[in-house]
């Protein structure tokens, strides 16, 4: 849904369009929205409504009409006072919006409404007969307000994708609204003196309701199903468009390059691998798509994958990476990652012709283990001239200086394996 990506609260609203405010509202957000639209302090609008309410309940009618016809929006006057939503970074690294808890204003508003109603009831001089109907009417009004207000909340929660509120609470609210309305209506019946017919009236009403449900039910169910299906299709289409927009350009670009470099096998392979990696990252990465490539890797998994991708690009040898578990990088682990990178470079340079280089990283409770394995001719550390410091310094030396261990060994059936183990600075779950 387009509203799902609602702008932050402090973005200026497009002018000249009336919305009800969902932020800092007391009841339906009518007053706040109106105040925002007219550029008046919200308290004035509220006072006007209260004043109109005194005029034979005109304010209430007006308010209800606004509530019914004006769509709910975000913002309104003074909404920057308290941000209604804050972002919080969840454990899995994704950000989500968190709704602010309802503030004291709403409780004050409720109390105020009760007081105003009392005053109204006390002041209005109606004929004794009509006055008796006031309480039931107020009850009905309160029930309706409760249910409407909830519908607003549900809608807002859907926009903000923060609708994790307890279902039971919502159900309780709806039930309370229904009970209030029911009580009010019953009260009116009782007052009309038709209490003795109440049973038969209820039966008749129930019969009519069941009849209507039978007649209209299938249509209603069908309609809601169609609606939700249509919404689902729209969401899908939008997702597809987003994927297409990303994939389209880069793939076409790569295909063009491949056609142009058709005679250079290594270049074609490099391009194809790079494109494959890009697509995979985009399609299957668990969180967030389109992460910036230039960003520094923050975890072991990211760092290993990044190094492998770079080595693959540079040397044209495929590297198969398997990562088990993940944890944030610390100093020791960064050194280990650099050593692992050296090992990957060596494997790609000297052992790449034997097939894909296998990179395995496992984050354990206390240590991080990385193995880089090639299927090349293998090599013997002792036979390497002493002036070639690459392996000794950049892998073994680096690991040992940082308190880790490195082990190089020839695999019996050909190839070399480098095993790097490093202690984690601290255990972070």
């Amino acid at each position, binding site marked *: 849904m387009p509203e799902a990506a609602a702008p932050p609260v402090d973005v200026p609203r497009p002018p000249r369009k009336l919305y009800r405010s969902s932020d800092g509202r007391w009841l339906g957000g009518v007053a706040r929205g109106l105040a925002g639209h007219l550029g008046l302090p919200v308290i004035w609008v509220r006072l006007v409504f209260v004043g109109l309410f005194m005029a034979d309940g005109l304010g209430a009618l007006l308010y209800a009409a606004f509530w019914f016809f004006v769509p709910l929006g975000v913002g309104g006057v003074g909404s920057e006072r308290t941000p209604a939503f804050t972002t919080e970074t969840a454990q899995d690294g994704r950000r989500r919006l968190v709704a602010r808890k309802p503030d004291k204003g709403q409780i004050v508003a409720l109390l105020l409404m009760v007081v105003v109603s009392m005053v109204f009831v006390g002041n209005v001089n109606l004929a004794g007969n009509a006055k008796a109907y006031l309480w039931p009417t107020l009850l009905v009004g309160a029930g309706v307000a409760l249910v409407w207000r909830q519908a607003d909340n549900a809608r807002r929660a859907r926009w903000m994708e923060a609708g994790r509120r307890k279902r039971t609470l919502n159900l309780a609210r709806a039930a309370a609204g229904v009970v209030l309305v029911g009580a009010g209506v019953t009260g009116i019946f009782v007052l009309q003196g038709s209490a003795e017919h109440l049973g038969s009236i209820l039966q008749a009403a129930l019969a009519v309701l069941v009849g209507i449900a039978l007649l209209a039910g299938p249509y209603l169910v069908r309609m809601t199903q169609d609606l939700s299906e249509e919404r689902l299709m729209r969401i899908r289409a939008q997702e597809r468009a987003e994927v297409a927009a990303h994939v389209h350009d880069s793939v076409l670009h790569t295909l063009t390059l491949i056609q142009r470099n058709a005679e250079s096998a290594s270049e074609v392979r490099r391009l194809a691998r790079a494109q494959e990696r890009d697509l995979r990252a985009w399609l299957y990465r668990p969180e967030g798509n389109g992460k910036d490539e230039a960003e520094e890797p923050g975890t072991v998994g990211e760092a290993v994958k990044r190094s492998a991708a770079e080595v693959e690009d540079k040397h044209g040898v495929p590297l198969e990476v*398997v*990562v*088990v578990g993940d944890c944030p990088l610390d100093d020791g682990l960064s050194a280990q990652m650099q050593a692992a990178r050296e090992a990957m470079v060596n494997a790609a340079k000297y052992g790449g012709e034997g097939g894909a280089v*296998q990179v395995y990283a496992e984050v354990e409770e206390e240590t991080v283990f990385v193995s880089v394995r090639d299927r090349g001719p293998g090599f013997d550390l002792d036979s390497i001239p002493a002036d070639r410091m690459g392996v000794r310094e950049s892998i073994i030396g680096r690991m040992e200086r940082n308190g880790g261990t490195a082990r190089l060994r020839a695999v019996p*059936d050909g190839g070399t394996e480098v095993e790097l183990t490093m202690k984690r600075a601290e255990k972070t779950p």
Partner: protein
Amino acid sequence: MSDEQGKPDATEASAPETEPVGRHARVVLVDDHRMFRTGVQAEIGRTETTGVEVVGEAADVDQAVTVITATRPEVVLLDVHLPGGGGVEVLRRCAPLMAAADNPVRFLALSVSDAAEDVIGVIRGGARGYVTKTITGTDLVDSIFRVQDGDAVFSPRLAGFVLDAFASTDAPPVDEDLDRLTQREREVLRLIARGYAYKEIAKQLFISVKTVESHVSAVLRKLQLSNRHELTRWATARRLV
């Protein structure tokens, strides 16, 4: 290639392709990309050298079920993403064939997908293994025979996924036998994830290839039967693309 005892050596790139084949497997290819089916067919379908005979192809779930029921192959190469419900749906509808007492049909998932929940999904659906589409023809033939024998086939990536999914959690297991991997099974999986072939693993751990196979089969069984909810939660947590 494979030897006669159903203990195929793994991934010997040096093995000559013209080696006489002592065995035979009837295979159905299920994949919605015709080009890919053609490629696989060309690579493994030379029956006289590979011993693999492609007896049928299918491009969607309905077709797959029809073809598999009609031909009763020994092994089905099954893509994860298929029109009509995906590989999982094929597995569900072919469950009686998989459970058949004589000549059961075995499934090997062959996918380009990297997504853990796809892979774990088909394995939990009853597939005997999972390999990626980048696999070489020789390795694929080898995997087909291994699956035909009832063994499990774990690619390094699948081993990684399994290690990840079974990683120790604070929650007590529902079923101690199923919800945990033994030390030995973890070791074997780790070596698979590091790119070792079964034979190399056997050498490394001083056990026989048969023992390696039984460890891998035990892991597969746990993966398919384990009812701990972490597995599902783990996959769900990674579903958010």
